[in-house]
C-alpha cells in the first residue's frame, strides 16, 4: 500500500465487518504537517484481550488463514513517520482507531485518492451512515451520507453508479481545492522570522 487512502480503506473495512452502521472518517492536519486520522465506528467492538494483540500480524478474525496484516501495517506506516497508533474499543461500544503521521517525514506515504476511497466505501455499504471530514488550517472537505439521503430521499440507493460518480467528483473537487489552498498557505517555520 503506497498511499494512506489504501490503509484507511483497509481499516474502514474492519468497521464494516464488525457490523458498524455508523462510520466517521476524520482527517485533521495542522500547520506543522501533523496529520491525525480518526476512524470511529459503532460496530461490535473488541474485548481488552483481543484489543491488546490486534496489531500483532498473527492476530486475525479471518478463518481462511492465520495472518491479518491490516492494523499491523497501519501501525508501521504511522511509526515510520514518527507517529503513533491508538485504539479505543469495548464490546458493544464500537471502535475508534486514531493514527498520527508527520507528513513532512520522507517515509510518509502520500494521501492518495481519498475521494475514491470514500465513494467505494459508500457504494459497498449503501446503508452505512458515513461522515467524512478533512480539516486543515487552509480549509476543509466534507461529505455526509445523511445529508445525501435527506436530499435524494429514501428510494434512491447510494450504491447507484450515478451517485458513486457524483460522490467521487464532488469530493475530488473539494480535495483538489484543499491541496491548492495548502500550496499558498504560509506555514510557520517555512517563513523567515522578522525580529
Amino acid at each position: 500500500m503506497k498511499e494512506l487512502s489504501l490503509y484507511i480503506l483497509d481499516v474502514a473495512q474492519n468497521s464494516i465487518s464488525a457490523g458498524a452502521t455508523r462510520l466517521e472518517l476524520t482527517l485533521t492536519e495542522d500547520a506543522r504537517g501533523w496529520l491525525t486520522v480518526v476512524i470511529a465506528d459503532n460496530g461490535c467492538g473488541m474485548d481488552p484481550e483481543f484489543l491488546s494483540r490486534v496489531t500483532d500480524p498473527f492476530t486475525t478474525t479471518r478463518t481462511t488463514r492465520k495472518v491479518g496484516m491490516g492494523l499491523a501495517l497501519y501501525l508501521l506506516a504511522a511509526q515510520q513517520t514518527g507517529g503513533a497508533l491508538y485504539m479505543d474499543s469495548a464490546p458493544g461500544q464500537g471502535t475508534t482507531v486514531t493514527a498520527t503521521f508527520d507528513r513532512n517525514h520522507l517515509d510518509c506515504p502520500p494521501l492518495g485518492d481519498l475521494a475514491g476511497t470514500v465513494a467505494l466505501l459508500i457504494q459497498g455499504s449503501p446503508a452505512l451512515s458515513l461522515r467524512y471530514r478533512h480539516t486543515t488550517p487552509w480549509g476543509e472537505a466534507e461529505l455526509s451520507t445523511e445529508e445525501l439521503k435527506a436530499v435524494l430521499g429514501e428510494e434512491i440507493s447510494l450504491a447507484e453508479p450515478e451517485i458513486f460518480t457524483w460522490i467521487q467528483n464532488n469530493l475530488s473537487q473539494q480535495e483538489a481545492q484543499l491541496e491548492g489552498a495548502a500550496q499558498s498557505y504560509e506555514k510557520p517555520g517555512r517563513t523567515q522570522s522578522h525580529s
Partner: protein
Amino acid sequence: MTTVQDLVNRLNLTTFCLPDGGRGITGGCYCGDLLSWVMGRAPAGGIWLTIMSNVNVAAVAALTDLSCVILTEDVAPDAALLQKAQAQGVNLLGTPLSTYDCAVCLSRLLQAQA
C-alpha cells in the same frame, strides 16, 4: 536443488534463525521493503531480501511461504521478529551486503546451480 543451508555456506550469511536449512529454493528472489507490496508479489519458495526488521516481516514470510528471508546491510531483527520467526519456522538470515549486491551474488549462485 540449492537449499537454504547452501546459501548460508556459500554467501557466509548470518543465521538469526534457521529451523529448516534443508528447504529448497524453488521460487527465485524478490527484493522490497514496502511490506504490503511484497506480500502480494514475493514468490512462494523464494528468497526475500529486505532491510525491514520488525515483526511484520515474519508474517509476510509465513503468508507467502518463502524459503528464507535475508536481512541486508547488516540489519538485525528486533526481539519480536526473532521470536516470531522461531515460532513460525521462518528461516531468517543476514548479510552486510547491500540488497543489490546480495541479489547479484544470489543470481550467480542460483544460475551456476541450475
